[in-house]
């Protein structure tokens, strides 16, 4: 191929993911050590099993297997008749046993899929497999970068934490699709109650990325397998968030496209995402191709859990809930989608519909609460539910204006944890009674003869001026619309 045609080539990106998620269980995958290790001293959550001491026997945690079956169900995957664990052998200090217990050719979930919305398009991402495995320990490299460190410090608190590795087909055609998928996956996992996004390091992503001729991509996004097999790909490691994934993969996409356009080959290699520098760097290693010598873990008998798929119920998933919200509560597509963005928000909203009109509650959560929370970078979990209910009661019973409820009471509740009634009392926000408004209107007319004259001369600004006077004298607690109406009534009579 000549340099010229190389330059003229239109290139398309192909991405596949390996997503590691930590399953929310009380104990580790193969021993009874607590998984609640946040803020713990190093090596205080270990036992002979997760330290790999001689003679210790692993026994699988039933809750982790249940969680895996739930994930399989949500991803519409097959749970095979029999599934088992294997040992993956490699030498690294984060593995106390010198092997990781994982699943090899008999994973617990196979052939699933997850549908995601990217812009207005629905895309179905194939899930090749999802399997259970134990997390290695964590390392600290003392005295600088990994290759220059003086020594390594090892903490096995994380060793044996239950992970699920979810492997997708190479179905992504842009980093944006990857981000949408990860958000959706997290949402589904949270709905299942098997995952906590807030937990440090609970989501870790490796991505395979290659570029191919754009003309090889069919209308429906499929690419011939031989074209895929021929393309050199890089594996990008160390991605830990949706945002990081989109950034890392956009960088890598540009890097590969530039290489191809300059007529250079993309090297098949592993690259490390350096979040702080915003680039991927080659992890050239002297080691030959990985040779993990997988073999069946004889200490863990095989599992036959395909029947659990019927027995274990999973909650309503986000897509289904969104559609139900639209129908049951007569919400717009946008409202329904925002209210089901996380399980937390959806549960919070749905509980409100017991007491309030569904549309009224939806507009308060979507238009006001979520906006104020977003602005403060907080989640709905930090909201005092009882206080929010009281706020809606005050609005619903017409005791305070919508404007004051939002701008004064809601903000004070969120910022200072204030009690709504106390704020109304302290700020004098109780809606001014009809008599008081009427009095203020009459007073405004009496005090501003010039404005009254301007009004009768047809000057539009005069009425607004008078409304402003009334609002001022009532401390903002009158409804501007009602004041406006009352003023006209008095002036025109």
């Amino acid at each position, binding site marked *: 191929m000549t340099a010229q045609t190389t330059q003229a080539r239109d290139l398309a990106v192909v991405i596949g993911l390996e997503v590691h998620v930590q399953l929310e*269980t*009380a*104990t580790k995958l193969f*021993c*009874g*050590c*607590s998984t609640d290790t946040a803020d713990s*001293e*190093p*090596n*205080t*959550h*270990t*036992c*002979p099993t*997760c*330290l790999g*001491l001689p003679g210790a026997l692993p*026994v*699988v*945690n*039933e*809750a*982790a*297997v249940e969680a895996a079956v739930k994930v399989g169900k949500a991803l519409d995957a097959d749970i095979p008749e*029999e599934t088992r664990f294997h040992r993956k*052998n*490699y*030498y*690294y*200090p984060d593995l106390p046993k*010198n092997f990781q217990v994982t699943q090899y050719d008999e994973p617990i979930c196979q052939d699933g899929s997850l549908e995601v919305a990217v812009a207005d398009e629905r895309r179905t991402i194939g899930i090749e497999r999802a399997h259970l495995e134990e997390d290695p320990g964590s*390392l*600290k*490299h*003392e005295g600088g970068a*990994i*290759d*220059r*460190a*003086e*020594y*390594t*410090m*090892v*903490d*096995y608190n994380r060793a044996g934490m239950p992970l699920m590795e979810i492997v997708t087909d190479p179905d992504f055609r842009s980093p944006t699709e990857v981000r949408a998928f990860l958000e959706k996956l997290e949402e589904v996992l949270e709905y299942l109650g098997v995952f906590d996004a807030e937990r440090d390091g609970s989501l870790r992503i490796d991505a395979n990325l290659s570029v191919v001729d754009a003309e090889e991509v069919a209308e429906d996004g499929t690419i011939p397998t031989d074209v895929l097999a021929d393309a050199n790909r890089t594996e990008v490691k160390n991605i830990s968030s949706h945002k990081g994934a989109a950034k890392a993969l956009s960088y890598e996409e540009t890097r590969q496209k530039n290489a191809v356009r300059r007529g250079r080959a993309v090297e098949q290699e592993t690259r490390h995402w350096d979040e702080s520098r915003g680039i991927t760097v080659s992890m050239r290693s002297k080691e030959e191709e990985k*040779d993990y*010598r997988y073999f069946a873990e004889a200490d*863990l*008998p*095989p*599992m*036959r*859990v395909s029947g659990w798929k019927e027995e274990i119920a999973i909650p309503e998933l986000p897509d289904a809930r969104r559609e139900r919200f639209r129908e049951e509560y007569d919400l717009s597509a946008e409202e329904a989608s925002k209210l089901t963005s996380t399980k937390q928000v959806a549960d919070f909203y749905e509980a409100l519909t017991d007491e309030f009109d569904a549309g009224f509650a939806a507009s308060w959560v979507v238009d006001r609460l979520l906006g104020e929370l977003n602005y403060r970078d907080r989640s709905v979990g930090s909201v005092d539910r009882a206080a929010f209910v009281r706020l809606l009661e005050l609005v619903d019973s017409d005791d305070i204006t919508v404007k004051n409820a939002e701008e004064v009471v809601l903000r004070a509740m969120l910022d200072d944890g204030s009690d709504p009634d106390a704020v109304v009392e302290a700020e004098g926000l109780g809606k001014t009674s009809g008599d008081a408004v009427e009095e203020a209107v009459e007073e405004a007319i009496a005090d501003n003869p010039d404005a009254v004259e301007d009004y009768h001369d047809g000057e539009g600004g005069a009425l607004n001026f008078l409304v402003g006077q009334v609002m001022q004298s009532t401390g903002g607690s009158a409804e501007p619309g009602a004041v406006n109406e009352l003023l006209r009534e008095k002036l025109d009579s």
Partner: protein
Amino acid sequence: MSEPVDPEEVRHVADLARVALNDEEATRFAEQFGDILAYFDALDEVPAVERDADLTNVMRADDTREGLSQEEALRNAPETVDGYFKGPRVS
């Protein structure tokens, strides 16, 4: 019959396990592995027997159990620092 083991294979596995072998050792172990694997060939001649049914679904409930203290966990370590196992630099 099992395949003979050559010294190259022995060296490869030794590398993966971070074991240093010289040429003489690699050759000697290749012969010994060959002998060991040959013994297993004898099993091919054992007639089929009834065996116990395999275990399946051996699981435990998700209940926490007291583990080791930091001091106990580190007791076998040649070197420690601030509650961590201390090891050589890795790369």
